[in-house]
């Protein structure tokens, strides 16, 4: 049942009138009902690209903030990759001092409006939350991410965004390769110290995965553009259409172009495919390609965008992460009649954010669990017409601790589909390594770094997906931060 934002606000108002000026005991705090995130009605939103989650009203934020027990041990902070003072910023919300609240977050995180939207809180801060532990259900934890988003959006709407203070110029120049979450964070922290920063971006628009990968309905591009604007106001230069490794080698940046240090944050690389028959048929896409066409190239605006997107009726998406959800939900918005997510484990093992899985279900996406493709079948024109699936069951736990899916013998069955989207992760991008022999990488092609994000080359640091493999925005941000601190120390 869909509950409108209006109704949620009204309910919160009622609760608030009872508890607002009371000093609350822990028992009373845990009795306050969890505030649901207002969302666009699924029936409506599958026909538009606008943001699904609409954000808390002031009333909801004030109610939700009172669910926090202000634990002295603050286990939530441990769960945060950048150690935001979570009880601190929530306390400030309770006191209705939103300016103080956003200030507390910004001590540790540069991109709260983005992280509040895309962080997998249920496996980070909210996993450790005492309230969730009391209910023995992490889904009942304090909604830390929603509160973070609330104060970040408040700041944006009040036009209170401040430009961080920049120290006097040091005359030193640092190159940042890639303008995704790792690059943006590193650039900001290095610029604050007074160093000149040039960010090199291969695409025609900066923002990395937040622009080409994550769809508008989950992360409005305006938010990312605002972050980039702030960066520019901090005197950071962004050079688009510049592919380090090809447009200029990394060594030339250091040896000929006068950069004192380089941070590599080039992100995801070549998409992984399943290695099955029929994967190069017409109608098989990597999620990277499908999402880039829609998000960066705006192919969803069919009348204005020059970039085409495949016209699909029956879509099958392979994978269980956020990218798989994004691809499936994009396909349904583009007019597909039937979209399924095929995942070879069960929902419990899905790495996607719980909220994305729930949203996908509400939007009518089918979940085919414990199934995987064994073959993609084409018609006489080489276009996808069906997929042969096999069924799995869960066996013993594997190295990742998740129970290993085992194929059921003789379970092959054929299901009709005209589009296949593969969302099973990425290899690393080979380009910088190809053109920089000295740079050490592991067997997956990820750059090897020490605890300060320093690579095997002097003055060269790296962070984000190019180091971690496929990770999250917040982890990339954390690494950008760490590398920036090391670069600032070096200079």
């Amino acid at each position, binding site marked *: 049942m869909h509950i409108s934002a209006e109704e949620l606000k009204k309910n919160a108002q009622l609760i608030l009138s009872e508890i607002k000026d009371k000093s609350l005991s822990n028992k009373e705090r845990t009795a306050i009902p969890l505030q649901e995130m207002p969302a666009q009605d699924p029936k409506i939103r599958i026909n538009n690209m606008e943001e699904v989650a609409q954000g808390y009203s002031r009333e909801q934020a004030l109610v939700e903030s009172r669910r926090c027990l202000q634990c002295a041990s603050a286990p939530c902070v441990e769960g945060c990759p950048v150690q935001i003072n979570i009880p601190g910023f929530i306390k400030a919300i309770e006191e209705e001092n939103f300016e103080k609240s956003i200030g507390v977050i910004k001590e540790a995180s540069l991109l709260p409006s983005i992280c509040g939207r895309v962080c997998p809180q249920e496996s980070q801060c909210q996993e450790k939350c005492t309230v969730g532990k009391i209910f023995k259900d992490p889904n009942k934890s304090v909604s830390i991410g929603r509160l973070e988003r609330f104060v970040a959006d408040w700041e944006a709407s009040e036009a209170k965004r401040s430009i961080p203070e920049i120290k006097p110029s040091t005359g030193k120049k640092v190159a940042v390769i890639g303008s995704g979450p790792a690059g943006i964070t590193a650039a900001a922290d290095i610029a604050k110290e007074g160093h000149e920063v040039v960010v090199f971006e*291969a695409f025609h628009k900066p923002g990395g995965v937040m622009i080409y990968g994550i769809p508008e309905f989950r992360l409005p591009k305006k938010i990312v553009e605002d972050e980039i604007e702030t960066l520019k106001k901090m005197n950071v230069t962004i050079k688009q259409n510049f592919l380090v490794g090809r447009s200029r080698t990394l060594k030339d940046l250091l040896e000929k172009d006068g950069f004192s240090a380089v941070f590599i944050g080039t992100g995801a690389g070549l998409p992984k495919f399943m290695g099955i028959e029929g994967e190069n048929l017409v109608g098989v896409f990597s999620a990277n390609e499908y999402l880039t066409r829609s998000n960066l*190239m705006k192919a969803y605006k069919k009348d204005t*965008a020059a970039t*085409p997107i495949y016209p699909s009726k029956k879509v099958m998406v392979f994978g269980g992460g956020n990218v798989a959800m994004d691809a499936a939900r994009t396909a349904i918005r583009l007019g597909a009649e039937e979209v399924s997510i095929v995942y070879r484990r069960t929902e419990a093992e899905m790495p996607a954010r719980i909220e994305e899985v729930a949203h996908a279900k509400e939007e009518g996406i089918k979940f085919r669990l414990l199934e995987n493709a064994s073959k993609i079948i084409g018609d006489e024109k080489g276009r996808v017409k069906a997929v042969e699936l096999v069924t799995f069951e869960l066996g013993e736990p594997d190295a990742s601790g998740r129970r290993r899916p085992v194929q059921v013998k003789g379970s092959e069955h054929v299901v009709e589909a005209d589009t296949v989207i593969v969302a099973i992760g990425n290899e690393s991008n080979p380009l910088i390594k190809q053109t920089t022999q000295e740079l050490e990488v592991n067997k997956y092609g990820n750059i090897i770094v020490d605890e300060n994000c320093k690579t095997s080359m002097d003055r060269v640091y790296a962070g984000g997906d190019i180091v971690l493999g496929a990770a999250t925005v917040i982890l990339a941000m954390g690494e950008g931060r760490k590398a920036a601190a090391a670069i600032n120390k070096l200079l």
Partner: protein
Amino acid sequence: MNKILLKKQLSDDVFMMKIEAPHIAEERKPGQFVILQLDTDFGERIPLTIADADPKEGSVTIIYQAVGNTTHRLSTLNVGDKIQNLLGPLGQPTHIKNFGSVVCVGGGIGVAPLHPIAKALKQAGNHVTVIIGARNKDLIILEEEMKAIADELIICTDDGSKGRKDLVTAPLKELCEKNPKPDLAVAIGPPVMMKFASLTTKPYGVHTVVSLNTIMVDGTGMCGGCRVTVGGETRFVCVDGPEFDGHLVDFDNMMLRLGSYKAKEEEDHHKCHLDLQIEQLQKNS
């Protein structure tokens, strides 16, 4: 933003443009390409091979046929106009060394990317035979430029309006039958030409390099849209290519994939022709 410095119409729908791009001109090597986009918000990104570059002037030359949405629009731009986004150079450069004798086969617009490769091979000391193929004499491009570097130049047209009335594969076969046979063949042109050129040289064991121009979005190793099957394995044209062993490329699959958006392309093509005609009529009136 990259300024157009020079524009020349080479045939009915083939154009040459020199574009200001100092850093691409400086880094570019034969065999590499650029990605061009006319409009940051709604334009598409298309790969175009670099036909030539002048590092002193800071310019690159592209030669293109107005066949799709972007190439049509590009053909309406003039000297002084700017191209919003130009990324490059991309792809692995051609492996240039002294192989001995090399035959370079160019079909239609493929002669453009072939020219810098033939030139570099000649400079590396190879004996270079160039075969140019086109439907008719009006569609032959870069004849003079090729003549200037080739030890031998053979022209074929489908209708016999110039040179031999033959497909490029006929003289290619003759060269392969000679003793000694060529040490290397480089074939660039429409996929079907590259397919048959590769099939021609295969029985003679003449190693054949082809340059593939597939659908791309980013061109930097992220989207995987450009993938082709080479020797049974999936390879990416943007980072592993654009050049591959022609004897191993699955051309049939590549041609099918090139047709992924055929319906929309045909619609665009039709619309673009109409737009251009209207524009022309308005100019004349």
